[in-house]
């Protein structure tokens, strides 16, 4: 019988939790290895693994996009992402929580941000994943510049919660 390289007979599958791996850095100037991250995101206690990949779209506001360029205030972005992931880990009792964001030039179709959550049941994995990506998008000091096919460029300005909350440090989901 032909076996794929990832196949392991059931008897060989350990029920012990895997050894803790070094968590990926929160901010990466290198392409995000979502396949590799997912491969390391399995846990015997997890019946659900959710992966969100935020990818560069080929259009914005009706204009063709060539690529995006991300920049971050790296020390604070790293600290905030780590805190958000830790909070989600505790709140939903996750087995695994990973978040990684690109900086630099990111091509159309490439991953700009990845969030992986693993938990006993799917509801927690989905909820935690949504919580992590929403908070990263609103709170982490990361910015994207859209580079359009017509040669123009524009900095994104996604988070305008302050226009609703009246406080530049308060976001919509914090008042709900």
């Amino acid at each position: 019988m032909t076996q794929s390289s990832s196949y392991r007979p059931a008897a060989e599958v350990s029920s012990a939790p895997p050894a803790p791996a070094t968590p990926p850095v929160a901010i990466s100037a290198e392409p995000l290895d979502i396949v590799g991250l997912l491969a390391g995101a399995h846990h015997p206690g997890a019946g659900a693994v959710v992966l969100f990949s935020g990818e560069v779209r080929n259009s914005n506001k009706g204009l063709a996009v060539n690529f995006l360029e991300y920049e971050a205030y790296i020390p604070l972005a790293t600290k905030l992402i780590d805190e958000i992931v830790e909070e989600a880990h505790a709140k939903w009792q996750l087995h695994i929580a990973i978040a990684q964001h690109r900086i630099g030039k990111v091509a159309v179709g490439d991953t700009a941000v990845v969030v992986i959550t693993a938990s006993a049941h799917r509801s927690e994995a989905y909820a935690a994943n949504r919580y992590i990506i929403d908070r990263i998008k609103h709170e982490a000091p990361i910015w994207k510049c859209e580079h359009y096919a017509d040669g123009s460029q524009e900095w994104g300005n996604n988070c305008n919660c302050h226009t609703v909350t009246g406080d530049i440090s308060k976001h919509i989901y914090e008042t709900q």
Partner: protein
Amino acid sequence: MKIHVYAKLKDYFQPEFELMETIGNTDELRAVLVKMNGGAGELLSSCRFAVEEGFIDKDFKLKAHDTVVIIPPSSGG
């Protein structure tokens, strides 16, 4: 006081520059920056400030040797 700016603020200021004025808090800093470049006023009103890798509020007392990072609304993801 050293100032670092990011993203769209770089359309109005150098990424890093120094201010020699006496500036006590973020409201005073914002006023100095608007005086330098009035076009940045609306954006500055929605920016947050950070010192030593932590956000600060308007009550934080700035010191001459601080490095202040000015943080426009996030647009990651």
